C-alpha cells in the first residue's frame, strides 16, 4: 500500500509541475453518474463538463434532485463517475481504487457538512485532529489548535460538540477541513442548519479563506442569497449544468432554463 501511495503522490507531483498556472485544478468532461434503483436507471449526472481553477470560489446551486449532491460526491472523491473523465490536480479519479480515493480525500479535500458531522464523544480539538490520524503526520495537537485558532475557536478546544452552538460546531467543521491544508474546500450546504447571523459568520470565514489564503472553495447550496456571495455560480437541473457564470447572470440562466423547459 505504501508503495502505491508514494507512486500516486509522485505522479501527481510530476503532472502538477507540468501544468501551467492557469490550468484547471478540477476538470470534468462529460461526466455521468447512473444509479440503479431496482430496474430503473437514475441519471443523477447526465453529461457534466466544467473546470474550476486554483483559487476560485464557486457556488453550485440547484433544487433537491438536481444532481448537485451527486456532483459534490464526485468532486469530493466519495464516489467515482459512471462515465466521463474527472481530472483532479492532473489525476484521473475514475481510475482509482477505494483506498486511493481515501488517500486523495485525506490529502486534497476538506469537507464541510450541513450537519457538521463531528464525532460527539470527542472534543473540538480531537475532532479537528481526525484527518491527521489517517496519513503521515506528527504534531497533531499543534496543527489542530492552529486550525481552531484560524476559525476563532482557540478558547473552545476542549469542548465537546454538544457544548457548542451550531455556528461554533460548523467552525470546528471548517477547522477540521483545513487541518490537512487541502487543495479544495468542499462545503455541502454549510449554512443549511444555521440562523442568519451564524450563516453570515460561516460565509465570511469561507470567503476569507478564498480571498486571503487563495484556497479553492466550492459551496453547494440551494439558497440563492448564499450562492450570490460567490463570484461564480453553477446552476444544476436534472443532472446537467444550466448556467455557469457570475451571480448577476443567475437570473438569466434561470430564465433560460425555464424557457428550455417550456419549449
Amino acid at each position, binding site marked *: 500500500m505504501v508503495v502505491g501511495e508514494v507512486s500516486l503522490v509522485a505522479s501527481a507531483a510530476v503532472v502538477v509541475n507540468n501544468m501551467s498556472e492557469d490550468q484547471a485544478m478540477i476538470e470534468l468532461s462529460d461526466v455521468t453518474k447512473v444509479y440503479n434503483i431496482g430496474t430503473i436507471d437514475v441519471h443523477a449526472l447526465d453529461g457534466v463538463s466544467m473546470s474550476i481553477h486554483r483559487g476560485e470560489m464557486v457556488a453550485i446551486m440547484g433544487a433537491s434532485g438536481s444532481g448537485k449532491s451527486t456532483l459534490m460526491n464526485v468532486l469530493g472523491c466519495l*464516489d467515482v463517475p459512471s462515465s466521463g473523465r474527472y481530472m483532479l490536480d492532473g489525476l484521473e479519479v475514475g481510475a482509482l481504487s*477505494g*483506498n486511493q480515493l*481515501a*488517500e486523495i480525500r485525506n*490529502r486534497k479535500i476538506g*469537507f464541510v457538512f450541513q450537519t457538521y458531522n463531528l464525532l460527539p*464523544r470527542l472534543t473540538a480539538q480531537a475532532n479537528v485532529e*481526525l484527518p491527521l*490520524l489517517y496519513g503521515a503526520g506528527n504534531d497533531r495537537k499543534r496543527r489542530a489548535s492552529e486550525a481552531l485558532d484560524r476559525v476563532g475557536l482557540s478558547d473552545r478546544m476542549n469542548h465537546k460538540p454538544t457544548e457548542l452552538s451550531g455556528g461554533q460546531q460548523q467552525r470546528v467543521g471548517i477547522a477540521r477541513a483545513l487541518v490537512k491544508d487541502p487543495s479544495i474546500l468542499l462545503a455541502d450546504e454549510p449554512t443549511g442548519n444555521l440562523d442568519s447571523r451564524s450563516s453570515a459568520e460561516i460565509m465570511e470565514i469561507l470567503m476569507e479563506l478564498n480571498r486571503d489564503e487563495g484556497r479553492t472553495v466550492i459551496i453547494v447550496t440551494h439558497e440563492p442569497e448564499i450562492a450570490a456571495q460567490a463570484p461564480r455560480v453553477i446552476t444544476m437541473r436534472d443532472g446537467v449544468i444550466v448556467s455557469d457564470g457570475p451571480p448577476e447572470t443567475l437570473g438569466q440562466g434561470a430564465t433560460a432554463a425555464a424557457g428550455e423547459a417550456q419549449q
Partner: protein
Amino acid sequence: MSPFVIITTALASLGASKLRTGLALLGIVIGVAAVISTMSVGRGAEQSITERIEALGTNLLFVRPTNTGPLSASTLTIVDGEALLDPLLTPSIVAQAPEVSTSGVVVAGRENTFAQIVGVTPEYEFVRSYSVSSGQFITNEQVVTRDEVAVLGSEVAETLFGFRDPVGQTLRISGRQFRVTGVLESRGGTALGNLDGQILVPITTAYYRLSSQRTTQGGIAVQAINVQVEGIDSMDKAIQEVTTSLRLRHRITDDDDFTITSQEETIETLTETQETFALFLGAIAGISLFVGGIGIMNIMMVSVTERTREIGIRKAMGAKWRDILLQFVSEATLLSLGGGIAGAVLGVVLARLMDGREIIGQNFETAVSGDITILALAVAAAIGLFFGIYPAARAANLHPIEALRYE
C-alpha cells in the same frame, strides 16, 4: 495509523459505553475464569493422585491372581512370593510382601467400625513405605505364632479409641480378641482406598483365623504380592522375571493365572481418568468462552450499526479500509483480552479459594499453573480477534456516502 493511536482510539470507544462494555466482557470473564478454575482443579487432583501413589513406595509391582470366578480358589500363594526372592531367577527383585485381605466389623468397648483387615508380613512396612506413629509394626514372631495382634490405621484408631493411646488396648474382630500393638502414621489418600481405615494383622492370623480359603496346592493364598524392584529402570526386566518365575512354578503353558501391574500403570490409569474428567470440564468451560465470543460479536455488530455515521465521517476524512478494519478488530480484541485478564484473576482467586476445601463431599486440591492462565488469555484474545473480524469487515466495507447519510 500508528498502533498507539489505534489502541487509544479503541479504548476511548470502549470507555464511551461502559455498561455495555462491561456486559460484553462478562461472558469472556466467566468463560476464562471457568477454564482456569476447572483446569486447576483437574491439575490439582492429578498431582495429588500422583503424589499419593508415589508415597506408597516407588519401584513397586503388584502381582495379583487372575480372577477366574467367584468360587474358584486363589492361585497365588505366600510360597510364590517367597520364590520371587530367588537371586538366579529374579535378580531384580529386592523385597516382596504378600497380603491377605478381608473385612469385618471391629469392636472396641462401646465403639465399633467396619474396616478393611489386611494380613501382612514385617516386610510390608518398608515395601509399602508405612511408618508407625506409636507401638510397633507386625513382627516375624507374631507371623510365625499367628498372634492375635493388630496395628491400626490412624482413622480406625481415632474412631475406636478417640484420644486414648490404643497401644495395649484390646478389640474384637469377628468375635476374636486382638491386642493393639501399634498405630500407623496417617497416610490420607483415596487413590488406592483409604489406607487410614485399615487394620493390619499378621498374615497367618488373617488367613487361618479370619478367613477360610485354601489353595489347591496348600499354603496361604494371597490377594496380592507387593514386589519391590531394585530401580525404576529395571521395571520391565522385573516384570519379565516375575512372569517367568511364576509361569514355571505354576507350570503354565497357555494364559497366565496372574497379572502384574506396575506403580506407573496405576498412576497412568488414574491420571487418565482424571484427565478425561478435567478435559470434559474444560470443554464445558470452553463452550462458555465460545458463547462469550459470540456475545462480543453481537456487541460489535450493534456497535458498527450505531456508529455507521462515524465510519462515514472517518472515511470522508481519508480512513482506508484497513484503518476501519483495524479500529473495530482492535476494539473486539481489547474487549476480550480485558475480559480474559479479569477472568484470569477471578479464576486464580477461585482456584485458591477452593484449594484444600471440602465442597459437596469432595476434597478439592487445586494447582494453578502459568501455562493454563496464559493459554486462557491467548484463547480469549484469539476469540476477540475471530469474532471481531466479521463486524469489522462490515464496517470497513461500508460505502462512505451511504454511511454518511445513515441516520
